[in-house]
């Protein structure tokens, strides 16, 4: 009696036999297989925590002026020094992390949604619709990215939502190319053909068969796009066309006053850039690892 175990029991024993919950185990496997990607994830989680807990983790308000302590170097009182108005740099960076992450996530969400829609529709329906849409995509891609983004910013004027929109448009066209080519490959799969044979509607095929299967590509593009979006937001702020003051943004800390006082107070430009690089580095590392794990066309490369 003790020797025979039903399949169901075996499954249950297996589950109970696990030492770790599934999420933790997945994390553990990810860490073993993709150590670089894991480092990236840790960086992002730490920065995200810093951003979320900004009211607690920032020692001062980012706009609080300590007139007596202008242009102070890093010290225990002001971890990363103060700027020309006597504002704490570290507090500005912590609040700036919020802005950067928010702008990055919003822009990427918008851009990937649009790219997925355009890519799947264009790839699935093909024919004249595809040809027309791809010519438009060609035209947008042919324009160097920053030209498009600068022009859109000039049209819309400064403002956080405008930055998000401009960055989203800038990324959507080339991302839609990737999604389209993934769709083209999926469309030829037997299960899509089978769905068509049994009379599934286009809408059903797109939502049930295509969208879930382009998700890995979309997630990968999104993670890599986050780094690019944060970098682009900083570049825009650097050129004076980004998120307007008094919002503390890493890019604008680096540009205006950060550059004017760079000789007296190099920490004003050094620390924001460091955090900016760290954030982009984290997203790129994670995106790279995700691409290896999620994108079937690249799976088994390493």
């Amino acid at each position: 009696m003790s020797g025979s175990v039903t399949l169901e029991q075996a499954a249950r024993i297996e589950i109970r036999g696990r030492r770790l919950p599934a999420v933790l185990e997945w994390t553990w496997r990810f860490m073993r297989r993709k150590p670089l990607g894991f480092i990236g994830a840790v960086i992002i989680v730490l920065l995200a925590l810093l951003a979320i807990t900004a009211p607690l983790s920032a020692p001062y308000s980012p706009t609080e002026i300590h007139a007596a302590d202008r242009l102070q170097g890093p010290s225990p009182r002001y971890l990363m020094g103060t700027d020309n108005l006597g504002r704490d740099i570290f507090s500005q960076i912590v609040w700036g992390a919020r802005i950067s992450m928010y702008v990055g996530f919003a822009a990427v969400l918008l851009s990937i949604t649009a790219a997925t829609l355009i890519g799947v529709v264009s790839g699935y329906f093909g024919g004249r619709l595809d040809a027309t849409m791809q010519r438009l995509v060609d035209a947008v891609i042919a324009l160097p990215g920053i030209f498009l983004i600068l022009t859109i910013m000039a049209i819309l004027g400064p403002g956080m939502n405008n930055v998000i929109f401009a960055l989203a448009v800038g990324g959507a066209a080339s991302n839609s190319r990737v999604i389209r080519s993934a769709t083209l490959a999926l469309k030829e799969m037997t299960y899509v053909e089978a769905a068509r044979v049994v009379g599934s509607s286009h809408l059903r095929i797109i939502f049930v068969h295509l969208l879930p299967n382009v998700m890995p590509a979309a997630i990968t593009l999104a993670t890599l796009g986050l780094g690019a979006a944060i970098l682009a937001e900083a570049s825009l702020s650097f050129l004076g066309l980004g998120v307007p003051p008094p919002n503390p943004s890493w890019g604008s800390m680096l540009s205006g006053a950060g550059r004017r006082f760079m000789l007296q107070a190099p920490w004003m430009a050094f620390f924001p850039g460091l955090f900016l690089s760290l954030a982009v580095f984290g997203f790129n590392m994670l995106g790279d690892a995700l691409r290896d794990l999620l994108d079937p066309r690249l799976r088994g490369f390493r």
Partner: protein
Amino acid sequence: MTGYIVRRIGLAAVTVLLVLLFAFSIIRLIPGDVVQLMVAEQGYAADVEALRRQLGLADPIHVQFSRWMGNALQGDFGQSLWTKRSVVEELKRRLPISAELGAYAIIFGLAIGLPVGTLAAIRQDSWMDYLARSSAIALLSVPGFWMATLILVFPLKWFGWTPPLRYYSWTDDPWQHFTFFLLPAAILGYALAGGIMRLTRTMMLEVLRQDYIRTAWSKGLRERVVVVRHGLRNALIPVVTLLGLQFGFVISGTVITESIFNVPGVGRYFFESILNRDYPAIQGIVFFTASIVVLLNLVVDIAYAYIDPRIRYL
């Protein structure tokens, strides 16, 4: 093949036309047109209207577009609304400067990216590989304008050294001309180096698994011969292709790099023209850069179709 090339060229022409139409209309959406900037709230309504008519900006947009196209087909891209200088002349002066900057940046990128990428591939999953991969990503992550700021600040603070920030033309002083480009080219090029490093590694890994590499090994060839002559040569095709397609990225990079280092190139010209709503200048720049991008894509496509006949699907 001929049919394919003809279709390809036709598509490329359509793309350039679309880009132009697109650029032409969106720059006119920028609030506060050039005339308002010129009179800066000091002109009367009548003067503003007269100026607008004089500049040809009062006509409907399709009239402006066809007039501009007609002139452009004859090689006349108009003149800057502010400086009255011919756009073509300005681009003739500035395009070579940006192209030189871009070329040095690409050389810099190749010089670092190719050897490190190859090394990472032949020592896959060693500490060298991990180091190369993380530094490639780091190079892609550190913003050029920050690096430029640091290079302007710290050497000056510690050694009293500043990089050359005054542009000399090739004919005035070849050496000064060359040294002027070094720093901006390195700043523009290190991100390229990261990208090239990664692609070289991926491509090398794929090539090194091929049968002819095993044959080369079993013939008893030395490692260097196998890696460089049989491996790298074959991995190089996609790398060089990518480089051609990275032109847009290089142009985007010049906008900021040229502003920081006072390079009188196209990138800075574009930024200034956008701020000044200098329509003819923007249109000219967009036309030339978009044409180069489309042309490079076209060449790559045709070359691929020539090498691999399966690609002629269109």
